[in-house]
């Protein structure tokens, strides 16, 4: 059972790697959006660093939303979704493998780029470890919850906007706890509460989302 799970992950990583050029897109998107803020708001160090925890996380939400949109699109186009449903293995396990692969492709680069961009927004170095942990705990939730919406909109034209409407409200708790953890650590306050909430959210999403995603895919297939 673990074998087939790893096989799904390996295949999706292989496909992604064969399309190397697309791997960098979420990262580039992140960098470009981040540069908009000083231009649109103010380059003032103090001002920016106050807004930064929110800006960093809003951008992460948008990057996650955009990248999760395509998680099942290719599988719908080439018919692999049907094949997953004919497998004797539990569908939610196979789908979970796909989400893990998607997170490895799109979430892991965030772990590298977000702290770097945070420096551009003048988040002090002392807050970076906490920011890093929020990304580590938060982005898998975004992938799991986003995949539910992506599964529901997979068969639709113009699904992108709809996906945003469905998924962004569900992202709000992640935004609140993650950005508040970062600002608290900038002020030298305790962050264990926020991080615990993110951890609990991650566990809940890990348990429930795979079932919701496979049920959604089943409906979109019909």
């Amino acid at each position, binding site marked *: 059972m673990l074998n087939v799970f790893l*096989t799904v992950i390996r295949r999706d990583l292989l496909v992604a790697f*064969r399309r190397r050029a697309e791997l960098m897109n979420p990262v580039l998107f992140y960098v470009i959006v981040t540069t908009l803020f000083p231009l649109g708001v103010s380059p003032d160090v103090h001002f920016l660093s106050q807004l930064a925890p929110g800006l960093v996380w809003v951008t992460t939400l948008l990057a996650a939303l955009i990248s999760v949109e395509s998680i099942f699109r290719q599988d719908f186009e080439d*018919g692999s979704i*049907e094949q997953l449903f004919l497998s004797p293995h539990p569908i939610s396990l196979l789908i979970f493998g796909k989400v893990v692969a998607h997170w490895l492709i799109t979430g892991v680069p965030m772990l590298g780029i977000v702290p770097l961009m945070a420096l551009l927004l003048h988040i002090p170095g002392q807050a970076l470890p906490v920011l890093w942990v929020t990304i580590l705990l938060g982005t898998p939730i975004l992938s799991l919850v986003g995949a539910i919406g992506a599964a529901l909109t997979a068969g639709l034209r113009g699904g992108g906007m709809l996906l945003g409407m469905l998924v962004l409200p569900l992202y709000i708790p992640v935004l609140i706890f993650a950005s508040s953890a970062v600002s608290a650590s900038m002020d030298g306050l305790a962050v264990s509460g926020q991080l615990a909430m993110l951890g609990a959210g991650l566990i809940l999403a890990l348990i429930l989302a795979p079932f919701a995603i496979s049920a959604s895919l089943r409906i979109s297939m019909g």
Partner: protein
Amino acid sequence: MHTQAASVLRAHGLKCVRGSTELFSNLGFTIESGETLLVQGNNGSGKTSLLRILCGFSYPSEGEVTWCDESIYKHEGFRQQISYVGHQSGVKLDLTVLENLLFMQRLTGSDGNESEVKEVVRAVGLFKQRDVLVGKLSAGQKRRVALAKLQLEHRAIWVLDEPLTALDKEFIGKFELNLENHLDRQGILIVTTHRELKLPEHRVKRIALS
């Protein structure tokens, strides 16, 4: 083979509505092991919809499909009986022939027997291209990759949507032999095709959609 006597796929009162058009209604048939259901009809007559309903991918608007007298949506093992090759065949263009078939073999539960995969690749005449990305192959060759998986999955019910598209005469001949072997093994075949498919006439049931 007497133990297989109950392996019957039965449909009754099937109705399929897409949007506001009714594709078919009150459709019923019985297919037993060793038999073929040949679904005929013009474009848009609902052939693909029917096949997807029989696989359990989508629900009919009315009616029921049973396998061994149990609804296919409730039957635990039903989905493991099916090999499905649709218009889109589930082959990844960014993987090589071998990678694709190895993955399909694993997905169906058999644990990576690579020599079997290689044998099948040889049988469909793609051994030289085994490490070529499927995206670089011709349409007919892609189709061969998709059909090759039938030999790897060892399943009782083959559901094929226009399997002959883009195939050359020589390969069609070979493929017809495969289908016949499948029927000899008491398999079930459900197929749509616009081209002529030679199968032993006494084993073929026809159904025409309009």
